[in-house]
C-alpha cells in the first residue's frame, strides 16, 4: 500500500474520532487543504504521523483547542480585494439604503479584518447607525482576536493601500489608535457589531439578513457541504437580500444557482430572487410584488 493510501486511512479515522468525541464535522472539508493543515499540526507538535493526533484530541483538552485553531488559520487583510468594496459601494449600498434598518451577517469572519472593513465602508456611506452586523466564526480564538480588533502595525501599510483602492473617503488612520507595535480599531466602529460563535457545518439559519458576506470560506468545503451552506444562506436572506462570496468562489455550479441573480460577476455579488409568495422553509412569508 502506498504512503498516500495509508495517510487516507489515518485522516478518516481521525475525522471520525473528532466528530464522535467533539461534534466537529470536518468530513466534508476539501481533502487536499485539510490534509495540509493536518500535516502542519503534525510538524508543529513534533509528531510523525497524522494518526498520532487522534489520542491527543480524544484526551487532551488543550490540544483539541489548538487543533481547532490550526484547522482554521486563514490570512486575510482589511479591504482584501479592494475592487469588491468599490462594487459594494456602487451597486449594493444604494439598494440597502432603501431600507430603514439592515442586518448584515459576516459568516466565517476569522480574525475580523473584513468585518471592520465593512463597518468603515458603512460609516462612510452614512449608514452604519442603521445597521446591525453579526460576525460569526466556529473558531473561538479567532473570534477573540476579532473582538479585540488589535492588529500588527506591520500590516497597516498594506491595509492603508487597500483602503484607498477600495474608495476610502477620509484617512485610514482616523479609524485606529496606534500604540507601540499595534493598531487598535476605534470603539465607535465596534458598537453595532455582535461577534458570536456559529459553525456553518452544524448550526442553523440566521434570520432575515439583508446582506451576507462569506468570503474564502466555501473554498475549504467539498461540493456537498458548499451546497448545504449556500442553501443555509439562501434561507437566511430576506427576499432581494445580497450574498457576497470570495473572488474565486461561485454559486454557478451549486444547487442554489437558479434562486439568485448576478449583481457583479467578477466581484461575486449575488441577489436572492423575489419569490411571489408562499411557504419558505415552513415559515409563511408575505411578500409585496
Amino acid at each position, binding site marked *: 500500500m502506498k504512503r498516500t493510501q495509508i495517510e487516507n486511512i489515518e485522516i478518516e479515522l481521525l475525522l471520525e474520532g473528532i466528530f464522535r468525541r467533539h461534534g466537529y464535522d470536518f468530513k466534508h472539508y476539501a481533502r*487536499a487543504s485539510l490534509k495540509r493543515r493536518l500535516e502542519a499540526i503534525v510538524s508543529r507538535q513534533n509528531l510523525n504521523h497524522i494518526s498520532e493526533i487522534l489520542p491527543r484530541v480524544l484526551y487532551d483538552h488543550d490540544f483539541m483547542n489548538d487543533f481547532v485553531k490550526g484547522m482554521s488559520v486563514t490570512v486575510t487583510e482589511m479591504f482584501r480585494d479592494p475592487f469588491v468594496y468599490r462594487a459594494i459601494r456602487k451597486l449594493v449600498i444604494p439598494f440597502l439604503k432603501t431600507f430603514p434598518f439592515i442586518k448584515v451577517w459576516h459568516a466565517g469572519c476569522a480574525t475580523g479584518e473584513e468585518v471592520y472593513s465593512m463597518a468603515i465602508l458603512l460609516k462612510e456611506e452614512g449608514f452604519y447607525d442603521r445597521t446591525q452586523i453579526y460576525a460569526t466564526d466556529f473558531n473561538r480564538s479567532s473570534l477573540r482576536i476579532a473582538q479585540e480588533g488589535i492588529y500588527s502595525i506591520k500590516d497597516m501599510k498594506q491595509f492603508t493601500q487597500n483602503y484607498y483602492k477600495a474608495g476610502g473617503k477620509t484617512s485610514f488612520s482616523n479609524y485606529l489608535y496606534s500604540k507601540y507595535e499595534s493598531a487598535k480599531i476605534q470603539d465607535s466602529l465596534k458598537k453595532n457589531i455582535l461577534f458570536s460563535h456559529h459553525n456553518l457545518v452544524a448550526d442553523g439559519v440566521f434570520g432575515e439578513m439583508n446582506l451576507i458576506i462569506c468570503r474564502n470560506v466555501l473554498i475549504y468545503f467539498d461540493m456537498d457541504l458548499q451546497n448545504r451552506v449556500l442553501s443555509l444562506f439562501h434561507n437566511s436572506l430576506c427576499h432581494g437580500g445580497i450574498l457576497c462570496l470570495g473572488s474565486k468562489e461561485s454559486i454557478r455550479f451549486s444547487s442554489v444557482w437558479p434562486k439568485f441573480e448576478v449583481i457583479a460577476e467578477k466581484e461575486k455579488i449575488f441577489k436572492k430572487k423575489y419569490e411571489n409568495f408562499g411557504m419558505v422553509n415552513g415559515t409563511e412569508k408575505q411578500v409585496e410584488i
Partner: protein
Amino acid sequence: MERKNKLKYDAIVIGVSAGGMEALSVIFPGLPKEFPLSITVVQHRQADSDDFLIQYLNNLSPMLVKEAEEKESLSSGVVYIAPPGYHLLIEEDHSFTLSVDPPVNYARPSIDVLFESAADAFMEKLVGIVLTGASADGSLGLKKIKELGGLTLVQAPETAEHPFMPRAAVQATQIDHILQLNQISPFLLEQFSVHS
C-alpha cells in the same frame, strides 16, 4: 484509446518564480494543442496581479492557457495557472482546491503546496518541473514527487535567469533530467507525444 495506456504519466506540474514569464514563453509555444497531459503552473506573483500573464501565455501557446478555478476538473491539453493570492491544490479526484492558508516559503501560491498535493493525487503518474527563481520554494514538493515515484525535471541552473530555485531543487532530491530551457518542450514532446 489504446495509445492512452502507453502513457506513463497523467499530469505535469511546473513551479517558477523570478524570470518566469520569459521561461514559460519559451516552453509553451513548443507544445501542441492536443498535448496529452494537463499542465498546472504556480508562478509567484503579486496578490493583486491582473490576468495579463494568462492572456499573454494563451496568445503564444497552442494549448489553452487559463486560470485554475475552484473545483474545476483537470483536462489534458490545458495549461492551468494558479490564481494570485491563493494556494492551489489538486484533489485525488483530479479537481482543484484553493486555500488562503498562510503563505509557505513567503509565497501564496506556493509551489510546494501545489507539488505535494499533486504528488498525493497522481503519485507515480506525475511530472514535476522546477524552473528559474530566487527562492527555495518547490524543493520539498519535488522531493515528495520523487518519493512517490514521479518524474523530476529541473531547468539547468546555469541557464536560469535566477539559478537559486533550480539549484535548491537539485540539492533537495534526485533529479531525473536537468535540461536547458530550450530543451524542455522538445523533451516533453518526445516523452509524451501521442504520435511518436
